[in-house]
């Protein structure tokens, strides 16, 4: 073992900047995917509970399909596999844009939303059925009853599992490096390739991932404690 540690090389100057650039991309892609997957997950769950059979089936199919295929396969599908289905003129414009990033966000969103949908459903099912019936009886439409009565309570219950999903998403975002999105893991690997100091580069990225995860987890817990649990509906 004649490995020479060189932390300064990896953490400062050009390579330090690479890590920061990678961190910024990881944060962007994670934040966008978290917001979209929460929205999409909610929609998918609500469809599941509408009691309109075709919508229920659609929602069930969506959840099972995207929950049961590997994320990397989905990433490749959205990036490489979607090509034949896009119209030519649109494609030309699209590929000039940051298509790698977009495909990454779509894959992460769709994948995570399938899991989130199941968790929201579990939250909703834990609210006594009579509440929905009572709100319908008092004249609220299905969507109003969901939006004003059921979902606010359900979201409070599922905060802990939602945190896990968000943390998974942040870590899963490292997989978009396979389609050339220059996020944190990609940058750590680039630094390894340029300097051969893989130990330092990957240690740095590990510490950064842990920090992001802890901050996200802590922030949501605080929000839950000081806001969600205090609000009276």
């Amino acid at each position: 073992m004649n490995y020479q540690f060189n932390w300064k090389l990896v953490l400062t100057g050009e390579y330090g900047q690479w890590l920061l650039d990678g961190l910024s991309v990881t944060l962007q892609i994670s934040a966008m995917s978290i917001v979209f997957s929460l929205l999409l997950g909610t929609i998918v769950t609500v469809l599941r509970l509408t009691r309109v059979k075709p919508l229920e089936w659609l929602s069930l199919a969506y959840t099972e399909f995207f929950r049961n295929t590997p994320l990397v396969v989905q990433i490749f599908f959205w990036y490489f596999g979607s090509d034949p289905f896009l119209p030519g003129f649109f494609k030309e414009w699209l590929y000039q844009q940051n298509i790698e990033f977009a495909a990454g966000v779509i894959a992460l969103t769709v994948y995570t939303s399938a899991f989130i949908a199941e968790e929201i459903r579990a939250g909703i099912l834990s609210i006594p059925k009579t509440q929905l019936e009572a709100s319908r009886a008092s004249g609220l439409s299905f969507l109003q009853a969901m939006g004003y009565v059921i979902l606010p309570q359900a979201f409070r219950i599922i905060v802990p599992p939602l945190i896990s999903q968000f943390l998974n998403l942040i870590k899963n975002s490292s997989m978009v490096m396979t389609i050339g999105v220059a996020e944190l893991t990609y940058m750590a690997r680039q630094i390894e390739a340029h300097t051969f100091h893989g130990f330092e580069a990957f240690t740095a990225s590990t510490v950064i991932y842990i920090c992001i995860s802890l901050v996200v987890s802590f922030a949501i817990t605080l929000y839950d404690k000081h806001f969600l649990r205090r609000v009276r509906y």
Partner: protein
Amino acid sequence: MRKLSLLLIVSLLLSLGAGVAQAGKIDDIKARGTLVCGVKDSQVPFGYVDEQTKQIVGFEPDICAYIAGKLGVKIELKPVTSSTRIPLLQQGSVDLVAATMTHKLERDDVIDFSITYFPAVQKLLVKKGTVKALADLAGKKVGSVKGSTSEKNVKTAQPACEVVSFETYPEAFLALKQGKVVAVTTDAPILVGLKYSDENPDNWEIVGEDIAAEPYGLGLAENDSDYRDFINKTLMEMWNSGDYKKLYDKWFGPNTKFYIPLEWKMEIWP
């Protein structure tokens, strides 16, 4: 007294262990009976999986087989990528790397290299009639592979282009086919392989100035000069006996799709 003798035995064993570790790669390989070689598995014609036999074949596996033959051991091929080949060599998971690896001085800090066994130059693979030279790449996306020298070279040669790096060259070529990047850049022989992997090779052309020289060397474990001498001698023998030309013609000769005239001479020491 018992403790002392135990200590003696342990230290003796330790020094024995150290002695074995210093024995050198050649003895290790002979004792094991196999030469473990890191090769590419999707790099036509350097190293790729044959459609019929499902075995890794190519120019580089053949060179490895020649070396294994000289050592009198069996050969085991392990697929590596541009970003895993150096770490695997450092760990000792492979005895040598024959994976289109450019001999760069900075790589010499962590591993050793044999003499050059294939001289390549870096070019651009583009859709016919689109890009002519490096200057046309300004503001465009260029596909490459993570951890490769071509990735660094193209950034230096054309700072205004955006490099998108994939895991393997076929993926980069797929991105080119789909129009996501306007060019794929790497060593010309790899580009020729990519070009002919398409159903219509005529749709693609290799253009541009020589972005960089990319002399390929066999990657060897650091600081084992007996081993390196042996590999270098074997390569020179291969050249002198004409076996190199035979192998070269098998993969790059006039009767192959990947015809590249043999226009160089291996460095031969007197």
